[in-house]
């Protein structure tokens, strides 16, 4: 990583990301100690062309590990991402009139219901896999979600 002990922050990383994007690279590796650079420019891998799909199905992040064989929560800078284990429709509350199961900022326990994903008229309760604080709700209520789609970002080590 670039931000080493001296405390250098995200500035250079953002610059590198811009660099990557600007030049249509797919890979860029930089090592500092022994001066190591690795660039990659994959011409064949094209971005998804399904324009209308974005409206219906929020695209899963492209960085999702292709080899992941189970919907395990992915570590995101110390956070836990709760993903949808099934295809269906996302609901934040048990019924249209009821309050949402959780709001951003809420503390949750492992096993606590966070939302419902409805599939084929069946309501599937999705539980938190860790104790922690809901940092971000990533899906919109009543909208469809696909398998593996991130629903919640939970910080397992809340300061309070």
């Amino acid at each position: 990583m670039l931000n080493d002990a001296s405390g250098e922050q995200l500035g250079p990383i953002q610059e590198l990301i811009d660099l990557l994007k600007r030049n249509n690279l797919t890979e860029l590796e930089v090592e500092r100690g022994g001066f190591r650079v690795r660039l990659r420019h994959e011409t064949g891998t094209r971005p998804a062309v399904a324009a209308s799909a974005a409206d219906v199905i929020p695209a899963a992040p492209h960085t999702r590990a292709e080899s992941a064989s189970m919907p395990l929560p992915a570590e995101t800078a110390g956070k836990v991402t709760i993903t949808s284990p099934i295809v269906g429709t996302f609901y934040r509350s048990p019924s249209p009139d009821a309050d949402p199961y959780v709001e951003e900022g809420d503390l949750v326990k492992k096993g606590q219901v966070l939302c419902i994903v409805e599939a084929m008229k069946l309501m599937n309760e999705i539980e938190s896999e860790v104790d922690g604080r809901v940092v971000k709700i990533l899906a919109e209520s009543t909208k469809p979600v696909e398998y593996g789609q991130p629903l919640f970002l939970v910080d397992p080590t809340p300061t309070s």
Partner: protein
Amino acid sequence: MFKKILVANRGEIALRVIRACQELGIKTVAIHSEADTHSWHVRAADEHVCVGPPEDALSYRNIPNVLSAAEITGAEAIHPGYGFLSENAHFAEVCESIGVKFIGPTSENIALMGDKAKAREVVARRGLPVLPGSPGELRNESEALEAARKVGFPVILKASAGGGGRGMRVVNKEDEVARAFQAAQAEAKSTFGHEGVYLERYFLEPRHIEVQVLADDRGRVVCLGERDCSIQRRYQKLVEETPSPAVNEALRREIGRVALDAIKAVHYRNAGTVEFLLDKDQNFYFMEVNARIQVEHPITEMVTGIDLIKEQIRIAAGLPLAFRQQDIRITGHSFECRINAECPEKFTPCPGLVTHYRPPGGFGVRVDSAMESHSQVVPHYDSLIAKLITHGQNREEAMARMRRALDEFVIEGIKTTLPLHRRIFSDAEFQKGRVSTSFLERLLTNQSN
């Protein structure tokens, strides 16, 4: 007609179905596993839904997720392709029950055709020629002897749970039956954990001939000619052609008649394939009906001009067939080579990154594939990565075109069956059309000698 179809498959057949939908002006939904996020079929569709992890049981065969994907996207029909859920009667039934049209045969058709013994019985009752054999498993030596006498020697003993040639014993004479039965039972038990054995008439060097049929909701059926799929390795077809060089006009009419009769006997609907075994004396025997679109369907399209996937969709939408038997005209000759990502020696799958992919082009050449340069062949699924199809005015031209196209085909980064196909098409016996289902094993044996 449907406005939106979900394609419950991947790879070349998913792209094939999506292309047909695009030409019909129908919107498409692709499903995919986490291993196929960047695949061509996903990019080609109007919408796409991830339905599970790479394992097909948890994604492409995951009925709740697949149906849920149809629900959230508002797809009115599902095309299953081949493999995966295509011959799952339960899936077809659930589709029907929730008002999503299953593009294929009825669930009853699939259930009956899945029970091969029963399907044979229904066809036999109609007075059609079926492959002679014991009605079910043989309990002891005397049952085996009795069945063998009835069927006529030579016979072959097969393990019910078997496949791939294990547990098989060819028996030529009555006094060999007892010992062969015991040996087959023992091998079946040790190999498959189940000692059940049955018996069939054994044919020396038969050909595999199959007939493509279409049947609409109103009972109209048409036959689109036969395909010769004798080039197989352990029951895996590698090369197909139509018309068969072993079938003359009279035999063609006769096999077609029997195929249509069999289809009518089981009240079959949509596209299907009636499989026959053809012996050296031009006798043919009904084996089974494949209740799905088949991998090798393109060669029939090449000689008839009829887009079978579009016909499947039209029939599922309740439209009558737009042509009658007399409208079908077979023009020229067509071959298909299945290009698999396999090591050519041992046929073990060979996944990996395709560093360079350049399909052949020009007149009479068709490529059905979802590959391109930098595609990843993932290890989780079937190793078929491309179908190379040629068409010519006659067998010689279609064959010369295939040789030319095989030479032109560049796939780098992984091993494929391309070299084997080049070898098959330069074989003198193959060129003369003198092949049987044992052709390929013999060719491979000659290679290692």
